[in-house]
């Protein structure tokens, strides 16, 4: 049987998992991602384990990235995006534009010397993967001299290549909701108001909160289930990550006062009941949706909310307010929909058909959060299903 080639667009947890599954079945995989590193959003999320693992799934991402590195039939096209697509008869043709990728990841030996010489902190590392250059780079060239294997080249130009593929998997992921679009959240005005995604990055760096913080508020459903903001869907992940974060913070700072503003708690994970019982004793649950977040004279954020039993408006100030922002469709969703001629649902997610493809009869599949909000472990399970469907479609048997 001739070798089959599948292009996976998006190297987040879904894309990588699909690529790994396909690659293990001997299918050639092209993994395309706009970032100079694989892993997508969740690779910079942090572990939320308290005494025991709370199954946030972040290490699944590390595992997937590390597996990808040693996958012989998977090629990674980083800093790349699809720009053209033609389907005629049985063949599919894809144009991929690759932007200058400063560190050739295949040549990099992970010695870390570039990191040592860089004064701009422009070189970062993805756990389980390698180094990449971020936008702080001034092209001073010090790292080029330091690299013992010549893996860094500056001033490369963008190029576009065309390739024939037998199947396409869209795993374009999501965009965290930006609470800055509505002033009521006070985001962007007060640095002590942070989003859940920013909090994830702090967890990743194991920084959590400023040491002197005494109180923190989590505000749920920011950009989810809100008709006003046009995001009517439930993001399915926020209760999970916010409650897990709260649990972890309580362990790190036992004296911390944690208030949790919510509409409804959504179940998550396989042992939710147990987790829920434990967490209820640790944090203060307030069934209310805050009206606004302002800043007081000391510069602390103040949460204004409707206290339901008394039906009165109340205010409470905190050291830090975490806005649990939800999942919204990726910025690329629309352009991908245009490129591949796909439908978007009311919320703007790619709409899959019953057999996993995006358009009936086509060989364009969708995986992960580009079709609906999902948690990390759901993404991995979904990827297995998608990989299976791709293989069935391509006629690959065991």
């Amino acid at each position, binding site marked *: 049987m001739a070798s089959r080639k599948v292009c996976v667009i998006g190297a987040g947890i879904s894309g990588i998992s699909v690529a790994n*599954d396909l690659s*293990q*079945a001997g299918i050639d995989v092209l993994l395309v991602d706009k970032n100079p590193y694989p892993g997508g959003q969740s690779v910079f999320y942090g572990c939320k384990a308290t005494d025991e*693992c709370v*199954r946030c*799934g972040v*290490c*699944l991402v590390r*595992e997937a990235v590390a597996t990808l*590195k*040693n996958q012989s039939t998977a090629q990674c096209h980083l800093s790349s995006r699809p720009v053209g697509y033609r389907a005629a008869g049985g063949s599919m043709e894809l144009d991929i534009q690759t932007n200058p990728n400063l560190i050739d990841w295949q040549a*990099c*030996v*992970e*010695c*870390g*010397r570039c990191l*040592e010489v860089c004064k701009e902190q422009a070189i970062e590392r993805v756990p389980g993967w390698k180094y990449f250059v971020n936008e702080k780079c001034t092209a001073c060239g010090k790292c080029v001299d330091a690299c*013992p*294997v010549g893996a860094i080249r500056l001033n490369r130009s963008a190029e576009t290549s065309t390739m024939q593929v037998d199947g396409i998997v869209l795993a374009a992921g999501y965009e965290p909701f930006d609470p800055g679009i509505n002033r009521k959240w006070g985001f962007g005005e007060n640095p002590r108001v942070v989003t859940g995604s920013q909090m994830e990055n702090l967890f990743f760096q194991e920084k959590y909160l400023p040491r002197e913080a005494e109180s923190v508020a989590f505000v749920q459903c920011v950009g989810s*289930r809100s008709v006003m903001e046009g995001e*009517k*869907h*439930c993001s*399915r992940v926020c*209760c999970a990550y916010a409650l897990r974060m709260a649990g972890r913070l309580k362990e790190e700072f036992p004296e911390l006062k944690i208030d949790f503003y919510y*509409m*409804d*708690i*959504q*179940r*998550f994970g*396989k042992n*939710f*009941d147990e987790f*829920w019982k434990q967490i209820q004793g640790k944090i203060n649950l307030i*069934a209310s949706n805050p009206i606004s977040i302002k800043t007081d004279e000391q510069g602390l954020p103040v949460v204004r909310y409707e206290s*339901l*039993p*008394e*039906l009165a408006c109340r205010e409470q100030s905190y050291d830090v307010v975490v806005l649990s922002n939800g999942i919204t469709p990726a910025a690329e969703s629309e352009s991908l929909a245009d490129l591949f001629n796909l439908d978007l649902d009311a919320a703007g997610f790619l709409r899959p058909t019953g057999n996993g493809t995006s358009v009936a009869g086509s060989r364009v599949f969708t995986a992960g959060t580009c079709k*609906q*909000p999902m948690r990390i*472990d759901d993404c*991995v*399970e*979904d990827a*297995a*299903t998608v*990989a*299976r*469907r791709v293989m*069935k479609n391509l006629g690959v*048997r*065991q």
Partner: protein
Amino acid sequence: MSDSIVAVLCDQQCSSKGPLQAANLTKRLAKSSTVGKLIVLDKACQDPEKKLKKVAGQKILFGGCPYLEESGFYSLAAEKLGLRPGEMLVTDVKSSILDLYDSSTAIEDNLIGRLESLGRLLADSAGLKDRPVKLKRNVLIFGSGYSGLKAALELSGEKLSVDLVETEDPPLAPGCLAEGLVCPGLIKELTSEVRTSEHVAVFPQAQMGPIQSVEKGFTVSFGGGELREYGAVIFAPERSEAPADQIGAWNLTQLYKRLHERRPIKGRIVFLLDRRSETPPEVIQDILIAAKVIKERSHAELWILLKQMRVALPGLQELYDTAREMGVIFVKYENLRLQNEFGDFQITGEDPQTGASFRISNPDRVIIPGTSGLSASALNAAETLGLRLLNGQYTQPYSLWRLANESNHPGVLVCGSARGNMDGGGVAADAASVVQALKARMIPEGITPVEHIASVDADKCVYCLTCVRVCPYHAMGKNIEERVAQPVTTACQGCGICAAECPAEAIDMRNLSRETVLAAMQAL
């Protein structure tokens, strides 16, 4: 000093600490009791074929950075030098020595210690000549509900033959039946498709004998007939629902059954959710579908009492909206009081959002979801399959290192709602992913036993069965003739738990025996 072990190190000159001082290390290793010779390669990852020409030895201890492994150096070395597992060891010198310690003396000391220690392990290990065990290309599916049927159909395109065990429990798990309300006859259709498929043989559960775990997989006989062999088992039982915890109330199964039989449901109907435990969104989805069907068929007054609006399923929010438009009354409750005199209910509670109290008197029917779990016969099957049961229920083991469908028993894959709550779409997707997991096991080359497989010293074994009890994988069996414990080589994962627990110190892990490990630790 033995000459058989050669240590081969990359000089690590890329590291900001490097390069390693080969002369120093050689001098210190001269006193070594295990490592006979040290070769330090200059940039081992560059042009490895040429570098490997300098290397020769019976057993080789490699050390380098993680990139050296990634570059394929070690697999090339194994191939070129003809080294089998047990004849070579690889240690990541960079992250566990060079980057772990600060001073150069500490690095050197620990590097020498590491080489000594691993040299000890290598000295006592043997090259492996294991042949892969070929599994039977048959699969047994336990369960004939939506998940079992879906899995059978997914598999029918593969070069595997499938035996399906038709369970005694009717395939009427809540999810499936609500699905059936939307697409009536779905289960019937699937069943007839499975029955007519040439790849699938169907057996009734009543005829199923005990499942034995053997080297090549599993054996079962049906109706006392010949033993049938399987390479893997897919455990896909239906869940069953416990009765409602109130006299006169229905559980969901009772409701769905009546709906399915198109019997009228009228009057004031109260759904009482989140009572003993939180009702999951998958169940709420089914309830909302059922509510829609009731409303379409008759003029019932529907109340849905719940603690939380669970909407974390795609499309669930829309179902709530539709139900509301059709006149279903949703009430969030707190401090619920339930008076029940043989089916005459008085329900009072408070709405936490408005603080107002509410009262529902004498509803025509109260519906309380029962806790769902595996039926007694499914639990029984789970037990014979060696699946781990916690608090009398099957709980899918979780760890990031295992596939979602893998159970604790290698070769037994769990599919469908036995793993947790799932809606119809979820079950269909899971049937695809269980086949994916099956592929990881049913590779044509067969399964090669792991390097550190448990081995039992028959002279020391007192046949106390401690290992059989503690093995997480159900991989320790009984050799009835010789009266000793005996591992199932295709199931053993080499974790060493049995060796640790054995009271007679009769179990050792191959190439990692207890004495060697202790000696290696001393050498650090």
